[in-house]
């Protein structure tokens, strides 16, 4: 059956093959079908032939921007640390980008992790990606052995069941609140345009948590991270977590204990989120990657809300606007300052 996804898959294969054949790119980054019905596998095509395996569907949940710096680097001629890059243009990489992935690329370009010139971006408007945990819940613990997807529906089946549901019901939470489905930087648009979305109460879940009292919020937080095994899938799935040595791994200084102590696990999640403050484009890769089903995206989502409300800042929409924590405004909110803030009018200690 012809679907938007199957059309887009064809177009991607065509474009990717063309890019590789023409030598415009040295590699093309996309997805291939996985060995399980609910997962796709990120894939680097290095020959035109390999592009035949590429697929595009609702299970493409890993943010491809994650692979770009490493892939680009691997294509550079080897050099010693500190040695200048060779003269002339370096090999380029073709990649698929949706709204949040492209915004993520903007951040990485701003943070000098890659050069825009070395990317050939095939822009795809996102129709929302599927949350396989929601499918599992739908299946009631039974093993899903096959999955079929149309433009609006998802059909799953197992040993002795078959179920159908609207895509909307099983989309990832971040996709449900996404307002920027279209890529902000791209070289070629693939597939139809999805209109900018109007999301009613995009931060509804965050506000719900904010309304709870401190004790309930702590209980929620603890429950949420209780099963964390510190495998760092969330961190490693995140294209923004590109530090050579993450603070959790550092032993000089050792900010965080390494085991699953409740404080250490909490600290890991707080700081991981905090390090994404003002940068996270809500691609949801962290949550999709988590083997334990932890909804750590809520922490970054809260920061996203605050950046928007406090600093009117939305990350990755523009290559030229500074990231919120690398700039300031004299009139930034300071109501949280308990002594000496503007609200008290005691600048310079006039209350003598």
């Amino acid at each position, binding site marked *: 059956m012809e679907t938007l996804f199957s059309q887009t898959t064809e177009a991607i294969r065509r474009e990717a093959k063309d890019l590789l054949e023409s030598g415009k790119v040295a590699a093309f980054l996309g997805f291939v079908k*996985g*060995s*399980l019905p609910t*997962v*796709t*596998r*990120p*894939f*680097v095509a290095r020959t035109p032939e390999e592009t035949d395996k590429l697929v595009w569907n609702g299970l493409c949940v*890993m943010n491809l921007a*994650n*692979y770009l710096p*490493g*892939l680009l680097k691997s294509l550079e001629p080897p050099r010693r640390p500190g040695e200048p890059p060779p003269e002339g243009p370096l090999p380029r990489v073709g990649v698929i980008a949706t709204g949040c992935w492209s915004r993520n690329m903007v951040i990485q370009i701003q943070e000098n992790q890659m050069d825009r010139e070395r990317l050939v971006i095939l822009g795809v408007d996102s129709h929302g990606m599927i949350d396989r*945990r929601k499918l*599992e*819940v739908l299946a009631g*613990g039974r*093993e899903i*052995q096959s999955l079929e997807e149309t433009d609006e529906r998802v059909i799953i089946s197992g*040993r002795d069941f078959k179920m159908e549901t609207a895509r909307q019901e099983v989309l990832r939470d971040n996709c449900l609140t996404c307002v920027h489905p279209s890529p902000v930087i791209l070289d070629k648009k693939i597939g139809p345009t999805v209109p900018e979305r109007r999301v009613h109460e995009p931060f509804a879940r965050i506000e719900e948590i904010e309304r709870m009292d401190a004790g309930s919020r702590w209980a929620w937080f603890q*429950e949420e991270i209780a*099963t964390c*095994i*510190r*495998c*760092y*899938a969330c*961190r*490693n*799935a995140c294209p923004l977590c590109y530090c050579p*040595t993450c603070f959790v*791994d550092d*032993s000089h200084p*050792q900010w965080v*204990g*390494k*085991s*699953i*102590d409740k404080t250490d696990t909490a600290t890991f999640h707080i700081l991981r989120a905090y390090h994404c403050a003002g940068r996270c484009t809500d691609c949801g890769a962290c949550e*999709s*990657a*988590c*083997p*334990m*089903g932890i909804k750590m995206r809520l922490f970054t989502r809260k920061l996203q809300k605050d950046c928007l409300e406090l600093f009117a800042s939305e990350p990755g929409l523009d290559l030229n606007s500074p990231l919120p924590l690398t700039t300031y405004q004299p009139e930034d909110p300071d109501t949280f300052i308990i002594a000496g803030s503007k609200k008290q009018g005691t600048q310079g200690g006039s209350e003598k």
Partner: protein
Amino acid sequence: MKILKLDNSDLKTLLTRWNETRDLFSPVEGNGKVGWQRIEPLAFNEPAEGVPRASIKVFFFPQPETLLEYSTRSGDRDAYVPRPAMGKGRERIILGVRPCDARSVMLNSLPFANDPYFKVRKDTTLIVGFTCERPCSTCFCSWTGGSPMGTEGMDIAMTKIEGGYLAAVLSEKGKELLGHLHDTKEASPEERKQLEALRKQAQKGTGPAGSPAEILRKKALMDLYNATFWQKLADSCINCGACTFLCPTCYCFDIQDETVKGKGRRIRYWDSCMFPLFTQHASGHNPRGQKIQRVRNRFMHKLKYFPERFGPLSCVGCGRCIRECPVNIDIREVMRDLLSIQ
């Protein structure tokens, strides 16, 4: 081997009795997440098909294991003098353990043969296993030397039949656990036959011909090491530790001291060969500094180095890594690819 026939009320009686002197654990589903939890005896349900998300190694190779403790408080006479941390504690019984997980305990006791901490955990833990009626599509225990009906590592192995369970008594401790039922509830010859049939049936699983462990042991190391498919795996891999931390037979660890509020302890905690720091030298040099090297190492260790050293594969075919890998790296494909190398 003694086989008993227990009905549901026998099981309840046993659980109630066991709970008096021991802690009971079993897989518990809650909030969409499956893990091991301490349970009340009557709350026990036969486990859902497949294995819980967390592996059984949390009981034998806890995250973390405190190796020793000390004071860091200035003025304390014994400041910085370490003292052993571990007491034996109450015995534990783990219920509902699948054959693959039970077998992993046996495999892990190979590298941990001389480890006192592992030994204490093992000595104080009894396993009441439940054989697999319906393996999942990601299960491949029979490839690795196990079986859905396997009993390795268990003290008692339960197999569900019409109207109750057939319980195989596999150890002295298992015998003790059963108490008087051991002598009064012996299974009938028909029932024993039924069990035999189930076991035979289970051995007809799909998978590579012959024993992969044996075949891989014999293959030239460098042929496997230099295979081209490693690059493709590395292309997809994000180098997280989900596979290693969920795997029942991954046993790598690191040791560190932690100090807070005047107290210090030395802990052993899970580490993963997927992490760059795992092999980082103090000099800064890293012999496995690249992702491809780390991905290769994980599989080579499980499928080549471990068998060479200990015999079996370091894999029990539970399928956790396949199910939970965010980028769908599938160890079965790796095994097939390795086996196909001539």
